[in-house]
């Protein structure tokens, strides 16, 4: 089992540690746990895990701070655990380089889905990023700038395409408003959430079967957006 992906869990609640460890071990992962931020940083440096699951409410240091310190030297995917109503912290951690988040209490299916996305991204970072993304009937060819629904090509404006391409390239990951605005528009537009809202509505109208109940272009309340592609 030496090839089993290694997950580091940094959370001070022992019950949560126990539950996550049991389930992830069952699913064939190698799990290490830490209860404090400093301990987590040390273990991360020693073991170089494939994924880090980080709780934002740690006793010794701010979770956002842990995130920042990890990002100084590793690209390892970080999944944040947080309690409800802490959108501000969540967004701060995501902007500091965390990849995804889960709100406590969470279902284990959600956790596994996040872990799968994170693992794929950590492989992508090693250079095998796919250039064609499928989501239901949608096909997005990032190399040729083509978007198709079934056989029909869909006409997008330049900005719409840029936005879709950015979301699709990061499919499965949550992208904060600020992140999207900075990358698709301009760092100077990072606060113009209204651009994002309007273009997202246009994209949904063109791509989704029911724009009010999107299947692929999902809203992450108070945080940002996420594109769901086929696995």
């Amino acid at each position: 089992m030496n090839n089993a992906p290694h997950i580091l869990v940094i959370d001070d609640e022992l019950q949560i540690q126990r539950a996550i460890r049991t389930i992830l071990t069952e699913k064939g992962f190698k799990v290490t746990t830490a209860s404090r931020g400093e301990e987590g940083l040390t273990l991360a440096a020693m073991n170089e895990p494939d994924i880090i699951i980080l709780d934002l409410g740690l006793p010794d240091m701010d979770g956002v701070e842990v995130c920042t310190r990890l990002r100084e030297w590793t690209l390892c995917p970080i999944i944040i655990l947080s309690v409800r109503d802490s959108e501000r912290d969540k967004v701060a951690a995501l902007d500091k380089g965390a990849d995804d988040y889960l709100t406590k209490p969470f279902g284990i299916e959600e956790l596994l889905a996040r872990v799968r996305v994170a693992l794929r991204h950590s492989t992508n970072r090693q250079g095998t990023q796919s250039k064609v993304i499928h989501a239901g009937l949608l096909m997005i060819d990032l190399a040729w700038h083509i978007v198709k629904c079934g056989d029909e090509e869909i006409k997008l404006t330049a900005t719409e395409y840029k936005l879709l391409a950015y979301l699709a390239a990061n499919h499965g990951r949550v992208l904060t408003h600020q992140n999207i605005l900075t990358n698709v528009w301009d760092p100077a537009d990072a606060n113009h959430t209204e651009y994002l809202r309007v273009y997202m509505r246009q994209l949904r109208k063109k791509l989704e079967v029911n724009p009010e109940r999107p299947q692929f272009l999902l809203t992450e309340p108070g945080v940002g957006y996420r594109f769901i592609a086929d696995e």
Partner: protein
Amino acid sequence: MTMRGSTLISRSSQYLLAIGFIALVTAILFSLREALDTTLVALLYLIPLGLITAYWGLGPGITSALVTFLTFNYFFIKPYYTFAVHRSTDIVILIIFLIVAIVISQLVGRMQSGLAAATAHEREATQLYELSTALAGLQDGLTIAKILAKQVQDVSQGETVELNITGTQSFAFRLPESNQLTRPPEWVVPIQVARGILGEIRLWRAAPALTSSEKRLLQTFANQGALALERARLAQAESRARVLEESDRLKSAILSSVSHELRTPLSTIKAAASSLRSNDVNWDSAARPELIAAIDDEADHLNMLVGNLLDMSRIESGVLKPKREWNILSEIVGSVLARMKHLAEEHRIEVDMPESLPLIPVDYVQMEQVFTNLVSNSVKYAPEKSMISMRAFVEGDSIHAVVSNQGPQVPQEHLERIFDKFFRITAADRVTGTGLGLSICKGIIEAHGGRLWAENIPDGLAFNFTLPLLWEGVSPQKLPMDTETE
């Protein structure tokens, strides 16, 4: 000109007037000397003496009596123009005259000063009455102090009156406000109540010095003020106590509601988990997935309850600050409906939110909460298969949203109260929930500067709310146009 100066002048002029009056009477009597008997002259002399004492007081009266004694002797008792007396009857007349004159003067004078004292007392009583009437019913310390200062100023005719109230609500008040005096005040009266000194009244009045009766009056004023201030403080303490009592009542309502509501899902979870753990349920039994689903659902329910409680306490303590962003209402509604899919599958849901609706500056998560609570309230009370409809339109510079259902109507007198915490029309055990959902909605909408209300519609109940379209007075920025297609 000071009061003291004018009294002095009037005093000496009274003496002069008295003597002048006596001189006049003497002159008249002198002209009639031959026709009048000595005894009659003595009697006639008593009239001006009485008048003088009555008008100008005891001092001028006695003085006039002595003067009259001399003029009577000098002009009317033989030998004339000497103070010598020859006839023994004249001596008797003179002595009786002197005694009677002094006795009359004293009697009249005493009556006079008694009258003056009575008048002064009456004035003091009136002033006190005015003060206590002005202070009656006042609940605000500053107003009381202002009135007290004004009255002290009126009564004392001081240059400046200053009130210093110490303690929790300390303040100083000065009349007239612009007067800044550097010298120490001439008179300081403490405002004292049973539990200590509330402050003091300072009075600047260089001259005339305060008389003891003025001091006494000011002290009485200070006491009245102290009583009024103390009464105001007690009234405030009482209203604080009422607020505390109210919040205490609320807390125990929360506790009883919470313990009931939290225990229900907990009991289900405990029962399901323990039966799964024991060997009572076979691995392949059909009950197994059902029990597991129950645990999952009830855990979600529990999570929602805790969330509601948190929201409520946040609204109560005023820390619920919307994190506004420009949002599209239909996007919020869409994500709420997506999440409530399984909850709302027993009802038909209709959404009418035209694309032309402008962006609104709201907190996405909080507005999700509002729609979630309104829809789940409708789901709870409206019959299965009935219609829940949501629509929104622009109305002036706000957006008006309506969530309506075909559930039971609410009696007119309860339409407002359904937004109160823990208010329920139905018995608590018939429908689950904390009784907080609607009051959370109200709290959120009001924090956004909007208004939420319920109304009965022909076939059910409608929740209406408005939200301002402007954010700090502005509409969203026009988007950079982008029409070229790839």
